[in-house]
Structures are given as structure tokens and as C-alpha cells.
């Protein structure tokens, strides 16, 4: 079986038709799973409308579309979570009725969800093979066998040196959990594997390992359904791309005949002229100044951000970017160094100090760090401006609604009302609520950690436009992102971090993905070497 070049270079990856691979010669591979005229309604909402889509054995089919387009609904129908109102599912040449995920598993369909489902207090091995333990004399757990099987799975992902089979699953990083979820699906009899945004928490390196595994599965004849918002990896990986919009299948073509602009246009239903807006900007005085900042995970970091400037922070996951942001914001204790805003030093004891100095921070994980999921859009926006909406601690409801309403309008947050629960909003709108919280304070410095994670293309464009707009208004922005094109698109200047240090700084016109990556990785290796 041929091993495909796994470096995943852009643009030059050979595209092959599913038919001309392997021994089968020129014939089309058999359908592994097909939806025939599937429709599904939830109340008045038509989630899927007469969708006919086939996944062939031995191909990677990318499923793209904005949030709400129906991708997840379709996958959940494949998984047996929902049953279609109309239409049928075909697998292994016969019509299937799936009543539960167990039914789907029985015919070899597995789905990897975005949020891994693990039992934190069990080991990796126990999590992987739960329900499939081999026993000695019918009673005792065969630990040696369990460890052997786990090690061989870990080896496939190149993790055998990093992780023991008996590592507690709760101690794994988000990326490692994601990989574990994928390992769990790699059972015998696997026919169709659906992955729902599997790389959203993976580093470049881990993502490449995942792609290698996905390609190998494809070559072994598994039909792969791959959902992602990342255009680059879709183009790298997929044999065919299907676009859903408003519950309908609007386009479906082989990857090589489907340029990116057309994919995006099919997704949003209109052409997107330019994702990144970049008007003339005036850089002002130094607004944020960080000198020798050191924490447990960040070492001697110094840099400035000027008013009206967007500085991008690049690096691999674990390079210390989020930790740097948390240190500047006073969330993580600084051991040494100083932060100043407009020349005035900021005492870094708590986020309250940073906020008082004019810093705002939209953290990486919206749901666990930024949003009160039980509260309304209004309450989430006004959380950091108690002084502006109250008198003697009593909330002035009118003032609060005016402030929140103005921001909902300005940021074009799509919500049924100010009082709607923020948990009901899409990822992009949730992110805008978080931005609204800080804009309400009119900050001087705004730190955005992965501002477009889990956000669909349309909302991404809006967030980029907003970043540009805020810069024009004179805010100093520090943007952390793992998506290189995004960083290159929004930032005026890029700092590269590795091993908790800033290892390179480059203006935008000198920066390229290759340069950033080579610095981030080279210095990561040196840092690892010196640490030992």
C-alpha cells in the first residue's frame, strides 16, 4: 500500500481520482454509505432538505458549509442519533434503518465529534478498549494484552514515546484527547469514519499525523467524511468536496476542479471578495509595552504594540502564547518583568488590574473561559462594565440595554433578543458577544486568543473586518492564532514564540508560513534540547 507524502505541502499535493488508486484500476469504488433524498425537520426549521450524497469506499469526502448548513445533522443521521423524516440510508448495498449509534457501529460507521468524550479517571488503555476488554480465564483483566493493543495504536500516531497506556486520560492535552477519540474508532470492520472538525485543537504536527492516519484508512478502503472549516486542509486531504447550504446540497465536485473561491461562494451563497480587509492604518504611540515578562511557562518576553497596530503571535500549541496573554492580563502570576499601558505600569495581581488599565482579553476557549452559558446575551456583554450601568450597585436596566443593544447592532450579533441565552448563539455570534464585552469598556489594548476558532467563514470575515476597524480606531491589538493564513492576513507584524520565548519578529511583508513555521519548530527543538 502506497504511503502518501505526509508533509502535506500546499498546492502541489497530487490529486488523484478515487478510481485510479490501488488494485481496482479504473473502476469506481463501491458506495460505502449513501443518503438518498434525506430530509429532516426540527419544528419549523428544515435542517436537511432532500440531500442525496454518497461516500465511496476508499475516498475522503469533505463536507463543508457554514454553521447551520446541516453538516452536523447529516452526520448525526449517519450515526443513528437522528432518523430522517424522508429518504433512506444505504450501506453495504442495502437500505439501513439506524435507531441508535450502536446500530451504526454494528455496520461499521463511526463518528468522531469535536468534543472528545472520555472518562478522565480511567487510563488511556481503558478508555480506548472499554467494552472490549479481553479476559484471562474469563475473569481477570488481561492487562498485558490491553497494554499491547494500546501501544500499537499509540505507535500509529507516533505517540508511543510520549504516552504510557496507563496515563490517566484526564491528564491528556485537548489534542491528545482528540487523537485518543480517533484511535477508539479504529476498530476492525470500520467502513465509514466521519470526523467533525478534528483538527480544531490540534497542533500542526499532530494534525499532520492525523492526516497520515486518515489517508492510510482511505487507502485501506474506508470511506471518510471530513468536516472542517479549514480550507487548506480540506484541499490537501479531500478527494471530493460537497457543499451544504441551508440544508441543501448545493455543489459537489472533485477537489482538483473546485477552486477555493468557488467553494466559499457556494458555502455563503455570494462571492466573498476578500476575506481580509486592510485599509490604510496609522500607527501611533506605543500603547502596550511588555518588558522581561516571566512566568512559569513564559521566559523573559519583551515587545511593544503601538496604537492602531495589529501584532500577531504565532507558534505551535504549547509555545506559551496563551500563557503570555494570561500573564499580561494578570490571570497568571508574573514572576518578573513589567507591563505598561500608555507608559503607565500595570500592577499584575489580577485581571481586574489589567482591565482597569484598559486591557481586554478574549480567551481561547469561549465556552469555558469567556461566556456565562446560563446567562443572556445582555448579561454577558455587560459583565465587565458594572460601573457604567449602575448607581449605588443598582442596575440601570435602560442604560444596560442601550449599551448592550448598541453593541449587538454594531457587531451585527444575530440573536433573537438581548435576553436570549448566549448558549443558543452560533460560535461566531458568541465570539462577537465576547468582543462586545470588551468594546463596551473602550479598551486601549485588546488581546484576542484564537478569535475565529469554531467560527464559520462568513463570521470569520466579519471578525477580520472588525479587527481592522478596531485598529483604525487606535486600539492596540495582539492576536494569537494557529491558522497561519489568518495571522498573515490580519497582522501588521508577527512575533513567533517557542518554548515560552519570543524567538523571532517579522513585519508582515517579510513573513511567510514557511518562515514562521521553521522558526517556531527549529526553536522548539533547541528549547527542548536545552531543557534536557
Amino acid at each position, binding site marked *: 500500500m502506497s504511503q502518501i507524502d505526509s508533509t502535506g505541502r500546499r498546492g502541489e499535493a497530487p490529486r488523484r481520482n478515487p478510481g485510479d488508486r490501488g488494485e481496482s484500476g479504473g473502476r469506481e469504488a463501491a458506495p460505502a454509505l449513501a443518503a438518498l433524498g434525506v430530509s429532516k425537520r426540527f419544528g419549523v426549521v428544515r435542517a436537511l432538505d432532500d440531500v442525496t450524497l454518497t461516500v465511496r469506499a476508499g475516498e475522503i469526502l469533505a463536507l463543508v458549509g457554514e454553521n*447551520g448548513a446541516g453538516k452536523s*445533522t447529516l452526520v448525526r443521521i449517519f450515526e443513528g442519533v437522528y432518523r430522517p423524516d424522508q429518504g433512506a440510508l444505504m450501506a453495504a448495498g442495502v437500505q439501513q434503518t439506524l435507531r441508535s449509534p450502536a446500530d451504526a457501529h454494528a455496520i461499521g460507521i463511526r463518528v468522531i465529534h469535536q468534543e472528545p468524550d472520555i472518562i478522565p479517571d480511567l487510563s488511556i488503555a481503558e478508555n480506548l478498549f472499554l467494552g472490549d476488554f479481553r479476559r484471562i480465564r474469563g475473569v481477570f483483566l488481561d492487562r498485558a494484552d490491553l497494554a499491547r493493543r494500546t501501544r500499537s495504536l499509540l505507535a500509529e500516531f507516533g505517540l508511543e514515546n510520549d504516552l504510557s497506556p496507563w496515563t490517566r486520560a484526564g491528564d491528556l492535552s485537548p489534542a491528545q484527547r482528540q487523537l485518543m477519540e480517533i484511535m477508539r474508532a479504529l476498530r476492525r470492520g470500520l467502513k465509514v469514519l466521519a470526523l467533525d472538525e478534528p483538527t480544531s485543537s490540534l497542533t500542526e504536527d499532530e494534525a499532520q499525523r492525523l492526516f497520515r492516519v486518515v489517508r492510510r484508512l482511505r487507502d485501506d478502503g474506508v470511506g471518510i467524511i471530513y468536516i472542517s472549516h479549514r480550507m487548506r486542509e480540506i484541499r490537501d486531504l479531500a478527494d471530493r468536496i460537497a457543499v451544504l447550504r441551508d440544508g441543501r446540497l448545493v455543489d459537489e465536485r472533485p477537489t482538483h476542479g473546485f477552486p477555493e473561491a468557488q467553494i466559499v461562494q457556494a458555502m455563503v451563497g455570494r462571492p466573498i471578495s476578500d476575506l481580509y480587509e486592510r485599509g490604510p492604518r496609522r500607527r501611533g504611540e506605543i500603547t502596550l509595552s511588555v518588558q522581561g515578562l516571566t512566568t512559569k511557562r513564559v521566559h523573559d518576553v519583551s515587545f511593544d504594540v503601538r496604537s492602531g497596530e495589529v501584532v500577531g503571535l504565532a507558534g505551535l500549541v504549547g509555545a506559551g502564547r496563551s500563557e503570555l496573554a494570561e500573564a499580561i492580563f494578570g490571570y497568571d502570576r508574573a514572576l518578573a518583568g513589567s507591563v505598561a499601558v500608555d507608559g503607565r505600569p500595570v500592577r499584575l495581581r489580577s485581571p481586574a488590574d489589567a482591565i482597569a488599565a484598559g486591557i481586554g482579553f478574549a480567551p481561547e476557549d469561549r465556552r469555558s473561559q469567556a461566556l456565562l452559558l*446560563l446567562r443572556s446575551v445582555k*448579561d454577558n456583554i455587560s*459583565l465587565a462594565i458594572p460601573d457604567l450601568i449602575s448607581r449605588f450597585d443598582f*442596575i440601570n436596566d435602560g442604560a444596560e440595554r442601550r449599551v448592550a443593544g448598541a453593541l449587538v447592532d454594531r457587531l451585527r450579533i444575530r440573536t433573537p433578543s438581548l435576553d436570549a441565552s448566549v448558549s443558543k448563539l452560533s460560535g461566531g455570534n458568541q465570539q462577537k458577544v465576547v468582543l462586545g464585552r470588551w468594546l463596551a469598556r473602550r479598551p486601549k489594548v485588546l488581546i484576542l486568543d484564537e478569535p475565529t476558532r469554531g467560527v464559520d467563514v462568513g463570521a470569520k470575515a466579519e471578525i477580520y473586518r472588525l479587527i481592522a476597524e478596531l485598529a483604525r480606531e487606535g486600539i492596540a491589538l495582539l492576536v494569537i492564532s494557529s491558522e497561519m493564513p489568518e495571522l498573515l492576513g490580519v497582522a501588521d507584524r508577527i512575533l513567533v514564540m517557542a518554548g515560552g520565548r519570543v524567538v523571532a519578529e517579522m513585519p508582515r511583508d517579510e513573513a511567510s508560513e514557511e518562515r514562521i513555521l521553521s522558526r517556531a519548530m527549529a526553536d522548539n527543538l533547541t528549547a527542548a534540547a536545552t531543557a534536557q
Partner: protein
Amino acid sequence: MTDVKMENVANVADRPVRRSGLGSLIERVGTHNFSLLIALAALIAIFGSLRPDVFFLLRNILNIGQAIAILGILATAQTIVIISGGLDISVGAMVGLSTVCIALAVGWTNSPALSILFGVAVGAIAGLVNGLIITVGRINAVIATLGTMAVFRGVAFIISNGQSISIFDPAFRFIGDGKILGVPVTILVLVIVVVIFLVLMRYTITGRNIYAIGGNPVVARLAGLNVRAYQIGIYTLSGAAAGLGGMLLAARTGSGQPISGSEGLELEAITAAVLGGCALTGGKGTIIGGLLGVLIIGVLDNGLILTSVPTFFQMVAKGVLLIAAVIIAEQQARRYG
């Protein structure tokens, strides 16, 4: 599924949400509170039809009010603690401690006002100790207050020598059995406390922030809130409320008893709060809900006595009915929520 909901939200973004009469009423009261009202009405209907001669008498209704006054204060305070993501198991012991301290203070000072202040202050200090242990010591609230529960109870026994201390001051006793404009003083105290808590949780930044730290302390801290200060304040408030509850108990019984408040008072307060819609994970609950929870318990107690259910059976019936009420409330919440 989430995908679908988002789309739904996006489509209706510009339309105001309008509902039918019953729907808007439910929305205003809150779905959970609405189901609690139904449960309460059902209990009143049952006991009212079983003992129509007594149940609806003003005397009986005031009886119910007096019986729940202390629990009402503790449960609404507990509601605040639970909303903030904590739990205070030591409230029963703080009530006992406070009755003893008040009884002693009345003896020393002969001033009911000073004694009441002293009792509430003792409760507040005990609560402050809880708050400091939980925040500075970073100890789980359940464990911390289980520990202090034993300590406070022990202190109450030590300073009273294990004896009940009688209170003879008539002005102080008035709080326990007196009436103002026909309303028992204890009920008035309850109403005042509930109104203060209600305003605090609904209309102030402090209340909003208590929901925030209970909903997600990381989010709260990253939004600039001093989470620890809030927690310390909340446990102090819970202690002060227990002190006030102890004051009412001392006034009603005319004594300070180290053992008082030990018959599962803290569990009843927690039960009422949870019945009232608090999530033990924090961030969710209402003062009105907590009060409705207390009313349900009060009506249940009263009704079971009126219908002459034997004491041991009362306990069983109470447990069963409480669970049934929660099940009904949950189902209602799911239907309308």
C-alpha cells in the same frame, strides 16, 4: 442539533418574541417557579379538601408562616450560597450557636437590641470563618462547612455548659410571639429578609456577579471580578442569616439551646433551595424559587399534621412528596424551557 438551533436563532433575529397569555405569564414568573406554584396549589387543594374546616383559617395560615420563618431565612440565604457555586452545611450549627450567644447576651446586657446584634454578629463571624477556610484554604465548601458544623456546635455546648439558657426579657420574647397589625413579628422578619435578598439578586450588580461566579468562576475572574471577596462575603451573609434565624428561634422558645437547629435544618434549607430551582453546580436559581420551596415544605408539614398522619409516616410522605414535586417541576421545565 446545535447547528439547527443556531439557524433558527438567526432567522428570527429581527422579530420580537411574542407569546400567548399563559405563555407570557409563565415567562414572567419563570418556568420553574410556575411549576412550583402549580405544585403548591395542588398541595393546598389536597389538604384544603381533606380539612376544609381548619386549613384555610387565618390562624392556620399564620401558623404555617411562623413555622417556616426560620427555614425561610436559611433557605433563601442558602439559595444565594448555592447560586454562587458553594454550599453551607454549617447553618444549623450556626443557628444553635447564635441562640446560646443571644441568651447569654440578654442575661448580661438586658438589652434585646444589643443581644440581637450580638447574635447576628456571631453568625456573621462564623460565616466569615467559613468563607476564609474555603477561599484562603482552598478547601471544598462541603468539607469545610461539615468541619465547621462540628466546631460551631461544639463551641455552643462549651459556652453554655451544655445547658439550655432561659430568656425572660419580655421585649425580646415579643419577637417570638408578638404581632404587629395582626401579623406575627417572625413573619415580618422573614418578609423583610426575603425582600432584601430578592432585590440584591435581581436588581444589583452584586447579585448579577454572584450568578456569574457561580456560573463559571474562571469567566468571572477574567471579567475582572474578585471571586474570593464575593465568596467570603456570601458565606458571611449566610452566617448572618443563620444568626438572625437563631434570634427568631431563641425568641420563640424563650431560651438559648446549644442543640437547637440540629434536627436537619441545614438539609431542609438545601432541599428547599434545590426544590426552588437551584442547580448544585451553581449559577442558577432564584430567591422566589427558594421561598416557594420553603412554602411547599411548610404546607406539607402543616397538612400532614392536620390530616393526622402519624409522625413516622409524615417523614416518609414528606420525602416522597418532595421527590414527586421535583420530578413534576423538572418535567414542566422541560416542556416550556
